[in-house]
């Protein structure tokens, strides 16, 4: 059985299973179900932030911190699929080359394949395979996000939002949504002008946010460099993640339940969408309904309801 090999840590079998999950092969879902009892030991960390904030470089640096502590690290990096060609260029590995021959590191790139929110539909599944394989830390890197891509929060135990100095007075790019999911805020490229200002702005914005108080979100400055220049603050980022983990310890059950709820809801939505697609295909697609709407014979709501009724 392939899952036995996966549990033994066989890289090729695990990689093929991830591929099948990403391609949504039905039998792979069955295998994932069998793996599920073996998950729950890896600590999942989400890294998100603006395009160009240095997410991949920070991930590379964090891998080094964890490897120095003899922890095994799995990484899932997500890049966008082109809505025009359906293809994608997955380039996050470029920044993680110093770990390329380390058997304690498994890096997997995924394309969004049309999913919104900064992750692919398969991201959680791929992370679960890494978890079942016994990786101690699992880092999920989202696509470069704008202002409300917050899916990573539902997948990760600790969400790290990375930004850089100089993005504007109010740190335009991390408005409400993205700021609210942060458990740890990182100002990367802190040797640039305006780093202290960025930290101050983040403090003020956290002050304004409701719910979780400012004292519960650490703001960390760092300089991640791929090891080509001296780094700074990376250990502080890792420490902030650990202390968030410690603080969450008391409410771990509640967090797990929230995550499970979000995950189930996501799966239900996905499965319903699949069924709707299949039904539409069986009925010959949307052309007939669309013609009716264009000719004014039917409104789009009635058309949609007629599809729903036949599910």
């Amino acid at each position, binding site marked *: 059985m392939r899952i036995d090999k996966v549990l033994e840590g066989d*890289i*090729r079998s695990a*990689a*093929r299973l*991830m*591929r099948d999950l990403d*391609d*949504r*092969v*039905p039998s792979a*879902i069955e295998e994932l179900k069998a793996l599920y009892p073996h998950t729950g030991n890896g600590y999942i960390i989400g890294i998100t932030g603006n395009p160009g904030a240095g997410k991949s470089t920070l991930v590379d640096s964090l891998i080094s911190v964890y490897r120095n502590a003899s922890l095994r690290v799995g990484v899932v990096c997500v890049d966008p*699929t*082109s809505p025009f*060609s*359906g*293809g*994608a*260029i*997955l*380039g996050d*590995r*470029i920044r993680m*080359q110093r770990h*390329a*021959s380390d058997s304690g590191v*498994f*890096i*997997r*790139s995924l*394309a969004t*394949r049309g999913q919104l929110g900064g992750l692919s539909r398969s991201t959680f599944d791929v992370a679960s395979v890494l978890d079942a394989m016994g990786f101690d830390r699992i880092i999920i890197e989202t696509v470069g996000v704008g202002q409300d891509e917050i899916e990573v929060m539902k997948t990760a135990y600790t969400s790290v939002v990375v930004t850089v100095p100089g993005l504007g007075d109010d740190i335009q790019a991390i408005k409400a949504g993205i700021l609210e999911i942060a458990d740890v805020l990182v100002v990367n490229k802190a040797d640039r002008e305006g780093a202290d200002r960025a930290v101050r702005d983040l403090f003020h914005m956290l002050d304004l946010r409701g719910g979780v108080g400012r004292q519960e979100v650490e703001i960390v400055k760092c300089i991640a460099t791929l090891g080509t220049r001296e780094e700074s603050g990376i250990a502080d980022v890792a420490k902030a993640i650990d202390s968030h983990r410690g603080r969450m310890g008391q409410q771990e059950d509640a967090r797990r339940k929230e995550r499970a709820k979000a995950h189930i809801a996501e799966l239900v939505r996905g*499965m319903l969408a*699949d*069924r709707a*697609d*299949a039904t539409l295909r069986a009925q010959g697609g949307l052309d007939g309904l669309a013609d009716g709407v264009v000719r004014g014979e039917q409104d789009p709501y009635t058309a949609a309801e007629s599809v729903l009724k036949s599910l």
Partner: protein
Amino acid sequence: MSDTQRKRRILVAKPGLDGHDRGAKVVARALADAGHEVVYTGLHQTPTMIATAAVQEAVDAVGLSIMSGAHMTLFPAVIEALKKQGAEDVVVFGGGIIPDEDVVELLANGVAKIFKPGASTQEIGQWVTDNVSVQD
């Protein structure tokens, strides 16, 4: 549950000491435009690094760009490294400044296709679509 949606995954890699990767990036872009998922790993890759990435990413094919003249060493080394990691079914193709007699020898030794300078990006994308099948 739902329809399987297989997509070709290709690793584009630049082994050896070439100083720039413009050609490799153009090819990566062309393959993505042809609808494939392309993992790109950057400059200065060793054959072992390429094979490891190919296995972890579960790709169907590896495309190598070699301009340094070391193609007769690097292509066989990558094929060997893939074999060592149990990934001998991964298709290896490539391009670069490679003399005709070397092309013949490489094709006889496990390389599926060599694109010469002047090959169009559409040609490369189409070749992958036609010749790289998605593994089951």
